[in-house]
């Protein structure tokens, strides 16, 4: 029965600002600073338990919760979209525990947490982009053991990955990596940029914005500071290239310079395309509407 009283007493408990306790935030903050000081290197951290499932963005979430303050304006996207269920759920949780202002406008946000996309609009110096990362280890494809991949990074021994890319070309005549395209950061570490499309990879290079990456389940934090060299792996005769949307345009806003989602119209059975960045798409649509009127 004591248990019961205890529970009743705690029923109206207030959670700490940003849910996780101050000491845990301190640890994450220390690790973020080290991540920034060693671009592309995965800093191990004691990932905390959150009421969001592992694999659903807990790494990004812990970074966001350690960064965020009452003056911040937050945007959360999943697949480029502000309203998908997972984005909404994360926002709901962060807002419940911090009360910060939420926005859909890329340019208005001070912190953007994202899964699988970098917004189309160019982000600036006073913003931070936080990536949710499922697989922080870029070498996992070629080497299952953590102890071994750590050694490979230590020795800058990336030959296995290069061989993998080479064999892809021999077998398929193309590098078949779609998203999660490996990049070399600051000429030292090869890094997994999270499952962003190749379309977004060039945005990592010499950007104005600080990029932070969090993998909760795998317990790693890493970073790309602003103005840092980020180069996709490529061969002289096999250059890196982004997804092709040649001759295609968004059926909502008409953009021809954005990453497009392929849609099957269930009535006509036809393929159409719309922008994956929904907030940008509606901005363009609204602008066009105004200029029409």
């Amino acid at each position: 029965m004591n248990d019961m009283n205890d529970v009743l007493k705690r029923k109206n408990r207030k959670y700490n600002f940003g849910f996780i306790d101050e000491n845990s935030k301190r640890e994450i903050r220390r690790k973020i600073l080290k991540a920034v000081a060693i671009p592309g290197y995965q800093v191990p951290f004691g990932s905390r338990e959150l009421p969001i499932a592992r694999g659903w963005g807990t790494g990004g979430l812990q970074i966001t919760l350690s960064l965020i303050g009452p003056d911040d304006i937050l945007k959360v996207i999943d697949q480029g979209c502000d309203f998908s269920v997972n984005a909404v759920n994360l926002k709901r949780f962060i807002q419940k525990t911090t009360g910060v202002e939420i926005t859909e406008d890329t340019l208005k946000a001070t912190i953007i947490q994202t899964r699988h996309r970098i917004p189309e609009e160019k982000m600036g110096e006073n913003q931070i982009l936080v990536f949710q990362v499922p697989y922080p280890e870029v070498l996992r494809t070629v080497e299952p053991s953590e102890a071994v991949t750590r050694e490979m990074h230590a020795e800058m021994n990336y030959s296995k990955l290069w061989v993998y890319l080479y064999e892809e070309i021999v077998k398929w005549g193309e590098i078949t990596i779609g998203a999660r395209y490996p990049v070399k950061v600051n000429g030292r570490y090869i890094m997994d940029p999270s499952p962003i499309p190749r379309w977004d990879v060039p945005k990592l290079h010499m950007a104005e914005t600080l990029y932070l990456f969090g993998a909760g389940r795998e317990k790693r934090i890493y970073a790309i500071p602003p103005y840092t060299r980020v180069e996709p792996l490529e061969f002289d005769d096999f250059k890196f290239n982004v997804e092709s949307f040649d001759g295609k345009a968004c059926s909502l806003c008409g953009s021809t310079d954005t990453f497009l989602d392929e849609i099957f119209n269930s009535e006509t059975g036809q393929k159409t395309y719309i922008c994956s960045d929904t907030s940008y798409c509606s901005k363009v649509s609204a602008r066009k509407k105004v200029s029409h009127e």
Partner: protein
Amino acid sequence: MLKDFESCFNCQRIFRMVLDSMSRPGKINNINDFSGIKDGYQYDSMLKILITLLDNEVTFSMSAQMGEQFKKDVAEFTGSIISEIQSADFYIARGNELNHEILRLKKGTLQFPDDSCTVIMAVDSIIRAVAEHSLSASRLRLQGPGIKDYSFAAVEGLNLQNIDLIKQRNAEYPLGIDVILIDDYGNVLCLPRTVKIEVEVD
């Protein structure tokens, strides 16, 4: 003892400024806006940074010049544990003293370069500088990740030989130490191990 230093929100804002300075070496942020810790305390700004970053999970070591009382205060306010210099997670020192201890600080291993010391160094003043300006202070010309082309900062109260020692300690990237400079006015400047430092003396 702690005045009305509200830990949750102040630490958050101070951290963001340190993060901004660490991400953009040469960029100076000022943490003076936040309520002080103790009235008229000599190392007020320094202590704010320490409370933001240190706790009972990490260790620190301090140069004797900072004074025995400050060492006790840091241990008390942060809960951090005093350790040998070679194993310290944080090292606290004044910039004006020539400090060969820098060469003994933990620089990490190739497997875990992050297991390395962060130096927090008190200097007299940090001023934003531009290339053409001639100042009495020594000017640091910085280059590396976080910096578009070059950035400049003028620091007073920093023994230039310490810069050489830091460069020596950071010679084998990714091994190295990361430095946070803090002046008497609450200005913060960071020198992560990636930054290339050139000293320009007029």
